[in-house]
C-alpha cells in the first residue's frame, strides 16, 4: 500500500504479512515517518519482525478467552476463597447463579450469605480433614456434598480444588464446584436396578441363563429347576469347570442357534431330557448384547411349556377327533368369524347345500349372502352374534346351487378362553323328510280340526278327579260359563250336585273300563229345560274327554213324535172304529136290504106262481092279500129304512172325517157369551120340557169359538135328551180355572150312565137309547174337538141321578 504523508506526520503503525524468500509468512510491524533528508521530504520506514510476539499474544488471548468462556459456560461454579470457616468467597464465576440460584455478589465477601451457609447441614465439615491434609501437602482435593439452593432444592455437588501459595504461604483456595445430582440419582438408580435385577431374576416364572464366553455365568432358580441342575452342578459352574457333556452339547446347540447374534429377540421351542431324566418342552428366548467385537453376553429366558404342550397336544388330539367327528357328522357345520366369513365348513354341509366344493362354500358370507338374507337366516346369525344366546331356527332353504331343503338351524357363538366372542357356529340339520311328514300330519290335523270344528258338540277335557282342564266349543256362547270360571275347577264347584256325582261316577268307570260312558242330563236354563247327552271317553291315564251334545231339540222332537204317535194311535183307533162301523153298522142295513130284497123276490115268485096257476080272482086275492098288505110293504119298509140308515151313517162318517181335517182357529173366547148363544138355540126344547137351566159365571178360554159351540151344543142336547121323566130337569153350567186350564162342567139330573159305558159313549155311532133320535155322533164329535184343543173331556155319572160332563181347555195361549 502506498500513501503519501506530510513531513512531520507520523503514520500509524500497521502490520503486513510478508513472504520471505524461504516461503515463510512473517508478520511485520511497519512504522513510517516524513523526514527532511537533504532538504527533501523523505519517508522513513522501520520494519520489525513481530511474528513471534504476535503468536504469543494470540495464544495468550486465546487462553484467556478460553478460560473466560469456560468459566462462564461450565455447568458449575469456579471460585477463589479463603480457607476460613465461612469459605469466604473472593470470586465466583457466573455458574454460581445456575448452581446455587444466588447472585454471585450475594456470596462474594459474605455480602449476604457465606458459602458455608449453603452447604447441607449434615454435610458441613464432612471432608474437612481430607481438605486440610491436601492443603498441607499442597495437593488437590475432591469432595462430594449437598447444597441447598435459593429455592430450597437439594443438589449433589462435586468440588475439586487446591491451595494457591505465595512464598510458601497459603494465600487462598481455588477450585470448581459442579452439579452432580443427575449423576448421583443415576448412580442410585443403577444401584437399585442391580438389586432389583437379581431379585427379579430369582423370582421370575421363567428361567434366566446368562452365557458369556461359552460359559454359564448366571442361572436363576427357575432355570435350574427346568434344566434339573443341582446345587452341585452349579458349584461346578462356579468353578468354571466345563458343563456335563449333554449340557455343553446342548449349550453348543443353543449357541449355534444364536446365529442371529443378538440382532433381535428370537425363540426356539423343543423337547429336552433334563439331567433328572424328565422330558420337558421348553421355549428359549434369546437376546444378546455385544460387549466388544469378540465378546457377547447372551441372555436366555427359558419357559417350561411342558404342561401347555401336553395340553396343547391333547387338545390337538381332541380337536382332531372332534374334527373327524364333525367331518362325518350327519349335521352340516359351519364356523364363521364375527363378520360372517366362513372359516370352516364340514362335508355334510356341502352335501346339504348341494355345493360343488368346500372352497365354493367358503366364499359365502353368512351375513351378506342374499339367499341367507332372503330366508331370514342372516338375521338370526346377527341376532346370535349380538346377544350371544343360542338361537334355533327352522326354514325352507333353496341353496345357491338349487338344492331345496327344510333345515333346522342351531346357532351359537364361539368364545375364546377369555369368554370373548370370536365367531359363530351354525349347525344345520336336513329336516326335509321330517318336514314333509309334518306337513302331511299338519294337513291331516287340519282336516281333523275341521272335522272337530264341524262337530256342534262342546268338548271338555276332564282330569280323573273331575277338574276341567280344557274345552273346545265352536261358539263360546254355547258354554254356560265363561271358560275362566270353570277351567281348573272341579265339577263339584260348577255343576249341580247330582250331575257332578253322576259325572264323577262315569269318569271313574270310563277310566277303569276304558269304555265309552253315556249318560243324559237336563239343566234348567232361563226357565227352559235343556237336555244334554254326554259321552265320556278315556283320553289318557288320568283324563277323559267329555263330549256334550245339546239334545234339547231332539228331546222336543221326540216329545213331538210321542205326541204325534199318540195322535196317530188315536187316528188309528178312529180308523179302526170306522172299519168297525163299516163292518158292523154299515153291514146291518145291508143285511136288511139284501134279506128283504130276497124276501121280495120270493114273494114275487110266489105271486107269479099263484097268478099263473090260479084263475079265480077271489082265491088269488085271498092268497096274496096278506102278502100285499103286510109282507111286501114290510120288506119295502125295511129296505127303505136301511138305505136311509146307510146314508145317515155315511154322512156321519163324512162329518167326523171333515172334523179331523179342520184346523181350529183359536182365540180368547168369552164363554159366558158363547153359552148364551148355545142356550138360545135350545130355547124351544127347554121351554117345552120345562128344564131349569143355571148358567154360572164362566172363565174365558183359548179356543175355536165355532167348534166349542158345537161341543156345548152336543152336551146340552144330550142332557136334555136323557133327562129323567120322573123329575123336573135341571141343568147347571159352571166353570173354574185350575193349573192354567179352564174347566167347564155341564151337570144334569138325568138318567145317568153306567160307569162301564163311560168310554163307549164317546165311540162313533154309539147310542145309549135307540128310542132317542140322534146320530150317535154327538159325544164322538165333542171328544174330537176337545182333543184338537189339547184339552180333555170326561164324565162323572150315577144311574138315575144324573151325569156331569167335564171339559178342560187351555186358559191361555201357549207357545
Amino acid at each position, binding site marked *: 500500500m502506498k500513501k503519501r504523508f506530510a513531513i512531520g506526520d507520523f503514520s500509524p503503525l500497521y502490520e503486513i504479512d510478508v513472504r520471505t524468500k524461504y516461503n515463510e509468512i512473517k508478520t511485520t510491524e511497519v512504522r513510517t515517518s516524513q523526514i527532511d533528508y537533504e532538504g527533501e521530504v523523505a519517508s522513513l520506514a522501520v520494519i520489525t519482525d513481530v511474528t513471534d510476539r504476535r503468536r504469543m499474544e494470540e495464544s495468550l488471548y486465546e487462553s484467556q478467552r478460553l478460560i473466560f468462556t469456560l468459566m462462564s459456560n461450565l455447568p458449575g461454579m469456579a471460585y477463589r476463597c479463603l480457607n476460613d470457616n465461612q469459605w469466604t468467597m473472593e470470586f465466583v464465576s457466573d455458574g454460581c447463579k445456575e448452581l446455587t440460584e444466588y447472585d454471585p455478589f450475594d456470596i462474594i465477601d459474605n455480602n449476604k450469605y457465606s458459602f458455608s451457609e449453603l452447604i447441607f447441614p449434615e454435610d458441613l465439615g464432612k471432608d474437612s480433614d481430607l481438605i486440610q491434609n491436601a492443603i498441607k501437602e499442597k495437593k488437590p482435593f475432591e469432595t462430594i456434598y449437598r447444597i441447598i439452593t435459593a429455592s430450597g432444592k437439594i443438589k449433589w455437588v462435586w468440588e475439586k480444588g487446591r491451595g494457591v501459595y505465595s512464598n510458601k504461604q497459603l494465600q487462598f483456595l481455588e477450585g470448581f464446584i459442579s452439579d452432580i445430582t443427575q449423576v448421583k440419582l443415576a448412580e442410585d438408580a443403577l444401584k437399585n436396578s442391580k438389586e432389583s435385577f437379581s431379585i427379579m431374576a430369582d423370582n421370575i416364572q421363567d428361567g434366566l441363563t446368562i452365557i458369556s464366553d461359552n460359559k454359564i455365568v448366571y442361572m436363576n432358580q427357575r432355570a435350574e429347576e427346568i434344566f434339573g441342575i443341582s446345587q452341585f452342578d452349579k458349584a461346578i459352574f462356579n468353578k468354571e469347570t466345563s458343563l456335563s457333556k449333554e449340557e455343553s452339547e446342548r449349550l453348543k446347540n443353543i449357541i449355534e442357534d444364536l446365529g442371529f447374534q443378538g440382532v433381535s429377540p428370537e425363540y426356539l421351542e423343543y423337547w429336552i431330557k433334563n439331567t433328572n431324566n424328565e422330558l420337558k418342552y421348553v421355549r428359549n428366548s434369546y437376546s444378546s448384547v455385544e460387549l466388544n467385537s469378540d465378546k457377547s453376553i447372551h441372555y436366555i429366558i427359558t419357559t417350561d411349556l411342558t404342561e401347555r404342550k401336553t395340553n396343547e397336544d391333547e387338545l390337538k388330539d381332541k380337536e382332531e377327533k372332534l374334527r373327524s367327528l364333525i367331518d362325518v357328522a350327519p349335521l352340516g357345520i359351519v364356523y364363521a368369524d364375527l363378520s360372517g366369513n366362513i372359516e370352516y365348513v364340514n362335508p355334510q354341509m356341502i352335501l346339504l347345500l348341494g355345493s360343488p366344493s368346500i372352497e365354493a362354500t367358503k366364499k359365502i358370507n353368512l351375513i351378506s349372502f342374499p339367499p341367507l338374507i332372503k330366508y331370514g337366516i342372516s338375521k338370526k346369525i346377527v341376532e346370535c352374534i349380538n346377544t350371544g344366546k343360542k338361537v334355533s331356527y327352522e326354514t325352507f332353504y333353496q341353496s345357491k346351487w338349487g338344492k331345496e331343503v327344510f333345515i333346522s338351524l342351531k346357532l351359537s357363538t364361539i368364545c375364546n378362553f377369555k369368554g370373548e366372542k370370536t365367531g359363530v357356529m351354525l349347525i344345520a340339520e336336513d329336516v326335509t323328510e321330517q318336514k314333509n311328514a309334518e306337513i302331511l300330519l299338519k294337513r291331516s290335523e287340519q282336516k281333523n280340526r275341521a272335522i272337530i270344528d264341524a262337530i256342534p258338540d262342546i268338548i271338555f277335557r276332564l282330569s280323573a278327579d273331575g277338574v276341567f282342564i280344557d274345552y273346545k266349543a265352536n261358539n263360546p256362547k254355547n258354554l254356560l260359563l265363561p271358560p275362566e270360571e270353570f277351567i281348573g275347577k272341579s265339577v263339584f264347584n260348577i255343576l249341580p250336585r247330582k250331575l257332578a256325582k253322576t259325572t264323577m261316577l262315569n269318569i271313574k268307570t270310563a277310566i277303569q273300563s276304558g269304555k265309552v260312558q253315556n249318560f243324559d242330563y237336563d239343566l234348567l236354563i232361563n226357565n227352559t229345560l235343556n237336555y244334554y247327552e254326554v259321552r265320556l271317553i278315556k283320553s289318557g291315564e288320568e283324563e277323559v274327554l267329555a263330549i256334550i251334545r245339546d239334545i234339547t231339540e231332539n228331546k222336543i222332537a221326540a216329545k213331538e213324535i210321542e205326541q204325534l204317535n199318540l195322535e196317530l194311535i188315536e187316528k188309528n183307533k178312529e180308523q179302526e172304529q170306522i172299519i168297525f162301523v163299516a163292518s158292523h153298522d154299515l*153291514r146291518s142295513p145291508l*143285511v*136288511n136290504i139284501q134279506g128283504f130284497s*130276497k124276501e121280495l123276490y120270493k114273494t114275487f115268485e110266489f105271486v107269479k106262481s099263484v097268478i099263473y096257476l090260479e084263475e079265480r080272482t077271489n082265491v088269488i086275492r085271498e092268497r096274496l092279500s096278506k102278502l100285499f098288505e103286510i109282507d111286501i110293504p114290510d120288506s119295502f119298509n125295511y129296505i127303505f129304512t136301511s138305505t136311509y140308515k146307510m146314508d145317515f151313517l155315511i154322512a156321519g162318517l163324512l162329518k167326523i172325517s171333515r172334523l179331523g181335517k179342520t184346523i181350529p182357529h183359536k182365540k180368547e173366547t168369552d164363554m159366558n157369551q158363547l153359552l148364551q148363544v148355545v142356550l138360545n138355540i135350545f130355547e124351544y126344547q127347554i121351554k117345552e120340557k120345562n128344564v131349569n137351566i143355571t148358567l154360572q159365571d164362566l172363565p174365558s178360554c183359548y179356543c175355536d169359538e165355532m167348534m166349542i159351540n158345537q161341543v156345548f151344543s152336543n152336551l146340552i142336547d144330550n142332557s136334555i135328551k136323557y133327562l129323567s121323566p120322573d123329575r123336573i130337569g135341571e141343568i147347571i153350567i159352571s166353570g173354574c180355572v185350575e193349573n192354567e186350564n179352564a174347566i167347564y162342567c155341564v151337570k144334569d139330573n138325568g138318567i145317568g150312565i153306567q160307569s162301564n159305558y163311560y168310554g163307549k159313549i164317546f165311540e162313533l155311532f154309539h147310542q145309549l137309547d135307540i128310542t132317542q133320535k140322534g146320530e150317535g155322533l154327538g159325544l164322538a164329535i165333542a171328544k174330537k174337538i176337545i182333543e184338537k184343543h189339547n184339552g180333555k173331556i170326561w164324565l162323572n155319572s150315577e144311574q138315575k141321578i144324573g151325569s156331569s160332563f167335564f171339559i178342560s181347555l187351555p186358559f191361555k195361549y201357549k207357545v
Partner: protein
Amino acid sequence: MEKDITILIAEDDQGHATLIEKNLKRAGILNPIIHFENGEDVLNFLFKTGETEYRKSGVSYLLLLDIRMPRIDGMDVLRIIKQDKELVKMPVIIITTTDEPKEIELCHKLGCNSYITKPIDYDKFVEVIKQLGLYLKIIQCPSLNGVYSND
C-alpha cells in the same frame, strides 16, 4: 129240538130279527120265539126284573144274542148271564154282523156256545140259519129250575 124250548132273540135291528124268525120257520124250527130289542130288556126277562114279561120256571130257553145293542150290549148280557149259577146253563148263540176275531175270541171266553156272523149275502144268511136250525135240533137244552138265586 124239544118243543118246549123257547128261543129268545136279542136283536136291536127289527129287520134282522124278522129275517131270522122267517128263515128259522122255513128251516122247520117252530118253537116259540120271543124278541127283545135291547140287552136291558132281555136281562129283565131272564132275571125277572122290570115291568115286562118274565121267564118261566121249568122252561128251557136258548138265546140268540146280538152284540151291538143300545143300553146294555150283547157282550155285557153274555157276561152277566154266564156269571149266574142258573142262567149259565142256558145255551147262548152270538149272532152278529161283526167278524172281528177279537170279539169272537172274547165271546168264547165269556162262554158263548156258538158264534154266527150275519152275512150280507141273503142266500148265505139263509144257509147259516138253516144250519142253526139243525144245531138247535140236536142241542141239549137244560131246563132252568126257575129259581133265581136272588128270588
